[in-house]
């Protein structure tokens, strides 16, 4: 009998939470043969990630995952063997009651956000004693041993490496999203929240000696991009040029397409959690726009990642990386730090690839969850 898993996701904003849980659900089905129900409280958001889904249907099978609408008025269901509340979302009380009443014990997990901070390993996999004889375990993704690892499909690195060594594959993908790469141009992807630092980066790219094609999937950064470009509103497919900088707005991409975009680019600016992790698997230098929090709590998290990521880089490359990431996340001018970073381009590229392979040598998040369940049984 296959173990049954319920994953609950409350879509807060953007597509990060739902992106992670959709990716996890598919992997648990495809690689571990599990029966997974994914409960989502925002079906239209899901349709953006899975266009073949029907937002009106409360229950549907997509890529082996039973996707269920999580209604405000909860209807009782039999709890699964394993229950994941993603990112500390609040499960329906009657579902919790049913978990406690279930004859066969239920493993209850709170899947937390990703952080490189040192305290994560100390809290990972600890229980939280609850009423009804239940324990809820906190499961923290992470970059080091003692954490839950990162989401990574079994053959992801091999697929990426094959793609990156096949120039035809890259061109075919770019063509499929309407992109024609100017000869000799550097290719950069941009996915970010609103950011006052953007104008300074665009200025630097426009005045560079080398041409750049900046690919921007539609999203929250478009207003800042439009403000810098001026002129008519930016629509999907829009192509603009200023100086050495060519800009093209891409449609919202599927997760598979977005991976290929990251693999295709020489440099990727990403945001939040899901695209941040995928950019690391791409093995290319990256710039992270972290989700901003009150009291600058996010900056400690940013620095915690930088502290482990920069290990092994030369002093100059470390400084360039840290300066650029700090400026980008604090809304300052990035022109100087960007130019500084370019001087260390080959070193940073090699480092990004080595980092991806090092991280890929650790157990991935889905496998860690499955193993945790088996150990718990």
């Amino acid at each position, binding site marked *: 009998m296959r173990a049954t898993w319920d994953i609950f996701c409350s879509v807060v904003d953007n597509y990060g939470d739902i992106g992670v849980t959709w990716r996890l659900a598919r992997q648990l089905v495809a690689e571990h043969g599990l029966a997974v129900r994914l409960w989502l409280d925002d079906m239209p958001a899901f349709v953006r990630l899975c266009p073949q889904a029907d937002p009106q249907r409360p229950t549907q099978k997509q890529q082996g995952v039973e996707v269920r609408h999580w209604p405000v008025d909860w209807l009782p269901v039999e709890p699964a063997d394993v229950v994941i509340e993603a*990112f*500390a979302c609040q499960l329906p009380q009657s579902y919790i009651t049913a978990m406690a009443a279930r004859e066969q014990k239920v493993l209850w997990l709170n899947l*937390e*956000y990703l*952080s490189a*901070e040192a*305290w994560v390993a*100390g*809290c990972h996999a*600890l*229980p*939280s*004693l*609850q*009423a*009804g*004889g239940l324990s809820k375990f*906190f499961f923290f993704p992470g970059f080091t041993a003692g954490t839950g690892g990162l989401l990574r499909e079994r053959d992801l690195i091999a697929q990426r490496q094959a793609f990156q060594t096949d120039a035809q594959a890259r061109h075919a993908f770019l063509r499929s999203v309407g992109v024609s790469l100017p000869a000799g141009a550097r290719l950069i992807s941009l996915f970010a929240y609103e950011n006052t630092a953007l104008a300074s980066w665009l200025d630097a790219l426009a005045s560079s000696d080398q041409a750049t094609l900046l690919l921007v999937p539609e999203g929250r950064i478009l207003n800042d991009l439009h403000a810098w470009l001026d002129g008519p509103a930016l629509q999907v497919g829009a192509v603009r040029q200023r100086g050495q900088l060519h800009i093209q707005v891409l449609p919202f991409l599927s997760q598979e397409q977005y991976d290929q975009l990251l693999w295709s680019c020489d440099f990727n600016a990403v945001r939040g*959690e899901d695209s941040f992790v995928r950019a690391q698997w791409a093995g290319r230098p990256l710039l992270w726009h*972290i*989700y901003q*929090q009150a009291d600058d*709590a*996010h900056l*400690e*998290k940013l620095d915690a990642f930088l502290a482990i990521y920069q290990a092994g880089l030369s002093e100059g490359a470390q400084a360039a990386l840290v300066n650029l990431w700090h400026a980008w996340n604090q809304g300052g001018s990035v022109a100087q730090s960007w130019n500084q970073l370019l001087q260390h381009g080959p070193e940073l590229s090699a480092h990004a690839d080595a980092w991806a392979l090092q991280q890929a040598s650790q157990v991935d998040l889905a496998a860690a969850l499955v193993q945790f369940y088996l150990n718990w049984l």
Partner: protein
Amino acid sequence: MKTAQEMKPNSVALIDGHPWLIQKAEFTKSGRNSAIVKMKLKNLINGSKTETVYKADDKMEPVILERKEVNLSYISGDDYVFMDPEFNSYELRAEDLESVLPFIEEGMNDVCEAVFFEGKVISVDLPTTIVRQLAYTEGSARGDTSGKVMKPAKLSNGTEVKVADFCEIGDWIEIDTRTGEYKSRAKAPA
């Protein structure tokens, strides 16, 4: 009901019908993660211990505990004996005093509070502010007198604290026992 964040060391929460002594509580908030409190708990019925994590806003049911003023009488190995004004003595193991142990030392005259659950002493609380003498610290490195530059120091029981750069060996200092942090230089207790 209180939130997990409001539950302090040496308080007792009723969890799923069982009284659990909170021996240690560390609050963490970072980035987008939910604020959490990592706790060391001791079951007051069967003595079992566990490390747990709660969301900071999880609700917990506090147990009202009896408290009585006591002073440290003596230390014998891992046994700590306290005495109340009526000369009743109460013996606790070091493991029962985890949250305050760094600041307990022979000869201290702080008026503490013994904490009782169903008539049995389960722990001891120290005053919020205590005065201790520095057994060791390096000399002032920068000659700073503002109190903003800190350096490591040791109390006579070996506990390490960060103190102002101008503090010297033999100085008395005030410590906040809730945070374990140095507050200021102090006069020697009378």
